[in-house]
């Protein structure tokens, strides 16, 4: 069993997102370590890009700060290796836009990511139509496919049937960012996806509180929390301590 399969043995799982380099590189490594040690079952580790067109203001700002502090893919992969050295064993999935990966060199990127201890990739601007080139390089490391409320049935079927690792189901149309309420049609949407696949279905976009995470966790196999995680931890005076409380509060509520 690989690290992703192990993580999904106790569902639903808690999957926070945090960008490397924010508020600075050292702190972000500590934050990710603390999240992993306090309840995160899988972490989406953010790679920064100058033009994050699928992200709302909070993640835009955080990744902008990371870039201003000089974050690069090379430094991000070194940080992943450092996290593995510190004994982090949960799956670490890289989430980033395609252009910096192209600039790094796709083959080298995948090879270096594997050596650093990365378990998979989420690339929001690489839909099924454009995935083949990258897919051919990743071997057993999954390129996580995204599905959206707008995906028609036939398309959902094609994507879900070929999905590996897990499916990232975008719960609402829009950019990343916490919403005040959970989309009403979510249960139906998850059911539609499950018809076509046996891989875990995880829900992201708009989940901001432990209560919402619990609610979504009753329907889905995993709950992705990005913006709320970045805002709460990044905006605090002691990000590492806040990360601990943040992870615990979500994990405890979801286990309730």
């Amino acid at each position, binding site marked *: 069993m690989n690290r992703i399969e192990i993580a999904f043995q106790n569902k639903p799982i808690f999957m926070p997102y945090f960008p490397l380099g924010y508020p600075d590189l050292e702190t972000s490594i500590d934050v990710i370590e603390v999240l992993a040690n306090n309840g995160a079952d899988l972490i989406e580790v953010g790679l920064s*890009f*100058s*033009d*994050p*067109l*699928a992200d*709302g*203001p909070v993640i*835009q700002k955080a990744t*902008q700060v990371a*870039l201003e502090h000089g974050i*690069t*893919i090379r430094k991000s992969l070194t940080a992943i290796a450092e996290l593995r050295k510190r004994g982090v064993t949960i799956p670490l999935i890289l989430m980033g*836009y*395609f*252009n*910096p*990966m*192209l*600039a*790094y060199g796709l083959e080298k990127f995948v090879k270096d990511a594997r050596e650093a201890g990365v378990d998979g990739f989420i690339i*929001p*601007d*690489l*839909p*099924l*139509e*454009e995935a083949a080139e990258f897919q051919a390089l990743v071997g057993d490391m999954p390129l996580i*496919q*995204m*599905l*959206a*409320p*707008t*995906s*028609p049935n036939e*398309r959902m079927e*094609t*994507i879900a049937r070929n999905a590996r690792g897990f499916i990232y189901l*975008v719960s609402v*149309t*829009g*950019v990343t960012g916490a919403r005040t309420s959970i989309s009403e049609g979510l249960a139906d949407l998850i059911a539609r996806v499950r018809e076509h696949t046996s891989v875990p279905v995880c829900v992201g976009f708009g989940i901001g509180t432990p209560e919402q995470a619990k609610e979504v966790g009753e329907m889905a196999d995993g709950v992705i929390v990005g913006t709320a995680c970045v805002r709460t931890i990044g905006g605090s005076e002691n990000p590492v301590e806040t990360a601990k409380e943040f992870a615990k509060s979500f994990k405890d509520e979801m286990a309730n």
Partner: protein
Amino acid sequence: MSTLLPPKFGPYGGQFVPETLMPALIELEKAFVDAQKDKGFRKEFEGLLASFVGRPTPLTYAKRLSEQLGGAQIYLKREDLAHTGAHKINNALGQALLVKRMGKKRVVAETGAGQHGVASATAAALLGLECVVYMGSVDITRQEPNVFRMKLLGAEVRPVESGTKTLKDAINEAIRDWVTNVGDTHYLLGSALGPHPYPTIVREFQSVIGIEAREQMLRDVGRLPDTVIACVGGGSNAIGVFSGFVDDEHVELVGVEAGGAGIETGRHAARFGDAAGARVGVIHGTRTYVLQDEDGQIAETHSVSAGLDYAAVGPEHAMMRDSERAFYTSATDTEALSAFQMLCHTEGIIPALESSHAVAEVIKRAPKMRKDQVILVNLSGRGDKDLNTVITELGQNL
């Protein structure tokens, strides 16, 4: 999943967008393909181009400019005389008609120089659509008259404060709005850029420039031009005029990028002109030449003309450059400003600063050509919107 039309131009183009938008692109492609086959749609579009835009736009012989340069005979395709003052209206109307066909009620658009924003606001007003235009706050300052025009036409202009606060950031925000409101909203993209099918749709709606220009050359001059010159930001006016001559293999096609303060300074928008700064990459849904740093972060660009101030070039231009069907060069801010003045003085035409880049290339080439040779320049827009910039740049010399 396969597309109805080819999604790529050689290795360029494609659909690098979030999954949420893929169904909208598929719907748009289908609506476009259906519309192209529908005589009623074509008739409505062509009718509006005639009765509302004022097409065909004239072909003007630039007699005094030709004499002053002492070489080739120069003809201007007068897109500056199209309603709203630039070629942008051709595409805006075409897409707005597609919006009606798809049953959507709202359009979002990005704008750099403001010309596409004005064209979108105009098409939306004409067809009764709600219109929101995203514009970088830097561009809002340098293209103020166009901001007022958009507002007068009933559009909401939303300033963009993120990133470099110019065209690329306006596109990011327009895409973010689109992804949020995709159910009732169409993204009225203004250049031959972005994910498939946009580069194809924009070229088709702008191809009227090339079709008219070719007919006018044959009818009025009795021959095709030796050289066709157009400025290239995203590249919609260039692809529009080039498309009329692309099959005439002996007609040389020349695109002019923004050389800004000079390629060597790094402050420019010459995607093809800077071997060190531009590589093939992916931005705003398309794979093409992109100005970026070594880590793949999109570079800040500079040009005196907001409409050319963008880090990527349309994917079809990338293909035409590789195949050497078209040749690309650049003009600096200084060369463009000097061309701007020369056209004002010799022909009584105030060109847009974007179009002035094409004129700058004419000034370099015409004297080296024979008097029996012919250059066609696409004068993509008029310069009224640029008066503030020109006054600032030329100051006492004006």
